[in-house]
């Protein structure tokens, strides 16, 4: 309880730092919601008609409709991938409704599942955020729209464009047309093609030349988190010399009705630009018998297009029944840098097949991969990665470290790193270990009066430290708690 209060205050401090936000918070609800998207749902099923209808509902220009259709036609020709180490029940793509009006949630916190509230309590989520996360209509509790507006003003002053993808397609068509699909082409893979055809919404970020984004977009996103739907599409473009840090997701479990999530995230970093993308994914993992849970099939890729650019992925994956994602970086510009820091935790019957790809094309490019996998229960956790040094990758360098921790006798931890080197001046290094928490470590903790559960969480925290260090401050604190909560019942 103590620690959760500390946590709460630290988050609130971040908010209170901004006097304007405090002022907005104190004010009573004034403005209305943006309700112009309240449409009837499309019936389940997928054909060209569905896509046209979806595009029409979203009032998209014709080029966007065509783009979607082209992706759809390509998708039809693609076989379903089966190479990952995953057991997936067949997905009926015709049974999904590709557009649904926002669903009405519970009316107050009293109606929310007590178990969920308990988890919020443990994680130390601020009260006003709990309601938003649980899907309670937020008007009386917390006016996210107004707070959002405040941030938006600040961003606009800096020249940063940050809006939903649908809005960007309407407002900044030339930017969207230039960059959308330029990192992950429509036919890139099965799920990327599906996403391109039917994506619902997502975020669009554009940081103009030389601008350092005045706030962590995480902060904004966190309060303004909307139900972006199951086919999320995110595009972040950082122009020459700009800098942005973006956090997606939330440490708190989110109420979600969708079974299949197939998101696409594209990052473009031009010369000397830096993008830091952090993810905390904690969707419903299914119950302890492996029933239900989200399928999370994501394509995330960054393109270091300019010289001296940098893209850094950090992810903490604890949710979803099945996770299938490989945030990648194409190191095109000379001296560009790619990083991947990952903690993936699986419990019960969860399955994760995750890792990264670092494609070195430019000279003196560098990449670093640190992956920590933790498996408990009957789960399966795989690291799958590719480091590729192309012919032109003069003096390129990669270092990879993959560690797996096993908790329990029935789980699996796997490592599948691919290394392809075509340049004799490039250096690639890979190291991996798999072990369990040693009896010595446990004995040491236990002999000092630390309970078994606390000892495990302490050791797991130490195991993940290298990755947590890369997370924005307040999320690092929460990530630690998140692992504790996720590992509950794993020992003993």
């Amino acid at each position, binding site marked *: 309880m103590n620690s959760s209060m500390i946590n709460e205050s630290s988050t609130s401090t971040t908010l209170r730092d901004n006097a304007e936000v405090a002022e907005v918070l104190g004010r009573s609800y004034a403005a209305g919601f943006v309700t112009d998207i309240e449409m009837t749902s499309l019936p389940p099923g997928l054909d060209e008609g569905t896509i046209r209808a979806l595009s029409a509902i979203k009032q998209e220009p014709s080029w966007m409709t065509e783009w979607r259709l082209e992706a759809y036609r390509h998708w039809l020709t693609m076989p379903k991938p089966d190479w990952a180490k995953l057991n997936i029940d067949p997905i009926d793509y015709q049974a999904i409704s590709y557009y649904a009006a926002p669903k009405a949630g519970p009316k107050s916190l009293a109606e929310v599942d007590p178990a969920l509230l308990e988890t919020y309590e443990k994680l130390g989520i601020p009260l006003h955020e709990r309601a938003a996360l649980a899907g309670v209509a937020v008007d009386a509790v917390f006016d996210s729209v107004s707070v959002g507006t405040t941030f938006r003003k600040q961003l606009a002053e800096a020249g940063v464009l940050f809006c939903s993808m649908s809005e960007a397609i309407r407002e900044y068509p030339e930017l969207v047309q230039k960059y959308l699909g330029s990192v992950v082409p429509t036919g890139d893979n099965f799920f990327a093609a599906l996403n391109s055809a039917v994506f619902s919404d997502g975020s669009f970020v554009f940081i103009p030349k030389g601008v350092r984004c005045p706030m962590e977009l995480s902060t904004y996103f966190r309060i303004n988190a909307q139900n972006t739907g199951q086919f999320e599409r995110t595009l972040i473009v950082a122009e020459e010399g700009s800098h942005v840090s973006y956090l997606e997701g939330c440490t708190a479990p989110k109420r979600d009705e969708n079974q299949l999530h197939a998101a696409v995230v594209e990052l473009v970093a031009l010369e000397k630009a830096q993008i830091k993308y952090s993810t905390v994914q904690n969707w419903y993992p299914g119950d302890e018998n492996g029933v239900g849970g989200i399928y999370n099939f994501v394509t995330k890729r960054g393109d270091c297009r300019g010289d001296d650019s940098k893209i850094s992925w950090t992810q903490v994956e604890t949710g979803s029944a099945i996770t299938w994602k490989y945030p990648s970086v194409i190191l095109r510009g000379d001296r560009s840098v790619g990083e991947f820091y990952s903690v993936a935790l699986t419990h019960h019957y969860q399955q994760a097949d995750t890792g990264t790809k670092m494609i070195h094309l430019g000279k003196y490019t560098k990449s670093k991969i640190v992956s920590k996998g933790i498996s408990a229960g009957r789960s399966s956790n795989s690291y799958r990665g590719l480091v590729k040094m192309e012919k032109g990758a003069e003096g390129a360098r990669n270092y990879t470290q993959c560690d797996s921790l096993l908790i329990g006798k029935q789980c699996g931890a796997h*490592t599948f790193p691919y*290394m392809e080197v*075509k340049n*004799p001046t490039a250096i690639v290094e890979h*190291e991996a270990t798999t072990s369990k928490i040693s009896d010595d470590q446990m004995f040491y903790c236990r002999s000092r009066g630390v309970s078994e559960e606390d000892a495990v969480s302490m050791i797991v925290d130490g195991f993940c430290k290298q990755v947590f260090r890369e997370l924005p401050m307040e999320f690092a604190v929460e990530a630690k708690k998140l692992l504790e909560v996720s590992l509950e019942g794993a020992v003993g």
Partner: protein
Amino acid sequence: MSQSASLPLVASLLDAPLPVSGIAWLDAVRRENRAAFAASGLPDTRVEAWKYTTLRGLGQRSFASGDTDAQTRVVDASLLALPGVDGARLVFVNGAFRADLSVLDNLPAGLSLQPLSQVLRGDAEPLRFALSWPAPVRHAGEVGDAFARVNAASAGDGVVLRVAAHAKISVPVQLVFVGAAAEADLAWHARNVIELGEGAELTLVEQHVASGEQAHLATLVSDIELREGAQLHHTVLQHAAIGVSLVRRDNVRLRARARATLHVLELGGALVRHDLQAELIGDDAQFHTRGVFMPHGRQHIDTQLAIRHQALNTISTSNWRGVANDRARGVFRGAIVVAPGADGSDASLSNKNLLLSPGAEIDTKPELEIYADEVKAAHGATVGQLDERSLFYLRSRGIPLAEARALLTAAFCRAVLDDLPNKALREHLSAMLVGQLPDA
């Protein structure tokens, strides 16, 4: 995959007459494997195990089956000599047993060493299990094992080696596979069955050598079984002709307390593929491999190591080095599986590679698949160049660059031979490694 039946390679392999043994079960196995190969064809690079080795070039070639003159080909005796190895010897030329070149008199007690062709004329029943692999499958799609099927269908000769329980064979046994120049490019096959009884000990030296220039296709499948407490030292020197396509597969099974140590040198061949699979099925079994592959020119050498820990307290160590020069390609996969319940397993694997030229490529893929928690498993892989500081050190002491490079490269490769107990052999192999180095 029907289009691959039209490939010249597949057509020529399917054209070859099936050897007839007169043993009903064996002839059935051969027919079934021939049919399975006809159905599956060749794997393409979309098959994970063949991701980095394309058979596009090989597929366009065709080969004559077997060598009718195998018994009369002249083979220089110096080819067979190996320092530190002067015991029993079994020699095959283009896949056929050559009694005149072999040394089979005065076999030590407990050692039985015969060519397969001879054994099949007698009681073949004890070989039934080994020769029934790969098992017939009713569904096409086991395409990754295409060459094993070709071998199972077509191999009519090979080694049958048995060491009786508790027999300790102190003198190394030598197996030599000679590829000899012939009028046409040949496809030849050999099937080996090696079994060490309880507590038996054996040192085995396997050689692949060339007599004249040729561009044959050879497939070899070895079934190696170690009973409880058996110990095997196995050294493989692959020095085939530079045009040869060589596809080898070793299936090693280790029972309780058995221990096998393999040293492998991959030097020759145009397209070389070696599948080395080990199953540690008895408690406390140990499997150790050391290897070096040194492709140069346009060679392509692919080593696929797969080790399965299936019992308690099993240990495996693997230490492999690769050096790729010119336009050559080195491929390595080192997969370690620790099966559920195989507690106390300790597995480590290291694959270090040197890339010496801008046209060369190394693809390496160490893998860990762990299903038990009381385990220690680690792997590491690197691809890089010689250490600049070491080079500088040597040059600052007056050693020319080329020589310094050769010296460091040799040291890099030699590390895998360090624990080879046969000193004379170790020095010979070491000299061969140096001989293959550029600038030496």
